[in-house]
């Protein structure tokens, strides 16, 4: 476009418009790109980032450890406490990996939670041999919950490992958790509540038992 008047005024306004737009868009997009670890002081941040790098090198879930740091920041925890928490989870992940072998990151973090709640690695190893079930997430979630609610570690392990070996599915573990939680809220001793509920929890028939001729295995009896 050719203007009869020298376009200084237009150039100035156009420049102002560009500057305004450039200023608006970064402000709107800032939140998505801010690294929340920047809220830590440089030493603690460096310690956390070192562990994140180590986790990445070892193939451990970095996002989980980063999330732990974020949780600490949101809880306004001391920087050293955040570093300790991330290191503790890092160690738990390594132990879970050494115990279970190669599993996906979700199961690995769930297993780390079980260990963090008080289970021993040799107890966790019981769940390594079972490859039939598609996922151990529900079993590990219930296990960690029961330990957190005060169920003795031996009781929780014996009860849940029995269900697991018997082939209990996710729904069975979830139902057990709801029942035990309800009993605990009503004042029953956590260990007793679990033992009672384990006894009345039906599990599927042993896979070695062949169903009678012409009869399909009843999946709903799990």
């Amino acid at each position: 476009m050719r203007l009869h008047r020298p376009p200084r005024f237009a150039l100035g306004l156009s420049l102002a418009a560009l500057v305004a737009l450039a200023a608006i868009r970064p402000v709107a997009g800032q939140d998505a790109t801010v690294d929340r670890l920047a809220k830590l002081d440089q030493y603690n941040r460096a310690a956390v980032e070192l562990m994140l790098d180590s986790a990445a090198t070892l193939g451990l879930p970095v996002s989980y450890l980063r999330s732990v740091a974020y949780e600490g920041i949101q809880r306004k925890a001391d920087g050293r406490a955040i570093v300790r928490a991330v290191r503790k989870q890092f160690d738990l992940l390594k132990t879970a990996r050494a115990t279970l072998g190669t599993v996906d990151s979700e199961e690995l973090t769930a297993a780390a939670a079980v260990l963090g709640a008080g289970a021993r690695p040799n107890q966790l190893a019981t769940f390594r041999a079972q490859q039939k079930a598609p996922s151990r997430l529900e079993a590990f979630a219930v296990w960690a919950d029961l330990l957190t609610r005060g169920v003795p570690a031996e009781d929780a392990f014996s009860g849940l490992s029995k269900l697991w070996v018997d082939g209990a599915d996710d729904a069975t573990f979830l139902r057990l958790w709801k029942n035990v939680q309800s009993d605990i809220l009503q004042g029953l001793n956590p260990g007793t509540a679990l033992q009672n509920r384990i006894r009345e929890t039906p599990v599927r028939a042993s896979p070695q038992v062949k169903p009678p001729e012409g009869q399909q295995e009843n999946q709903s009896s799990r």
Partner: protein
Amino acid sequence: MIDSEQHPYVEWIAREARRPVVTDPAARERVMAAIRAEPAPAAHVPLWRRIVEPRALTLSPAAIGLLAAGLVGIGVLAGGFAMNRDGRMVDQPRVGVAPQLPVSDTVVRFVLVAPQAETVSLVGDFNGWDASKTPMARAASNGVWTVTLPLSVGRHVYSFLVDGKWSVDPNAPLAPDDGFGHANSVKIVRRGSVL
């Protein structure tokens, strides 16, 4: 220097310049005939030619100012519509088309009963434990706070922030203390399930 009064060529040039010009009376007719013989220009100019041909425009400073302000306004509006309040780009809503979630995501509904609460938000590993990112909405007058969001399949750890105080979900398994003195809640998201 040459004296013009004594130079024969100067006299001759002056005489020629003063002589009246005699034109052929038919010359004008010949010129007009030649013009008429040329093809008339097309009445319809093609659109592409109108677009690409340069033309001169005259704008006053006030008009230039209005034009620039309009461009800024369009940019601001476009930026506002294209971003949500988290600053992430979002798709424009399309009439009659359901929002598409990533294949790995499942829509999950979180519910908390807190009749006395003024504000409730959801924090967890899915939103970087940022209290400002997932506020929950209160259902009318019954104290039930809900929020629905897409989560990836797997295990998620979360808590509620009720008026700034941390609270676990009474309807979900507990996750042990990460090292900050408080338990959280766990949600196991399966593919295709709506919890």
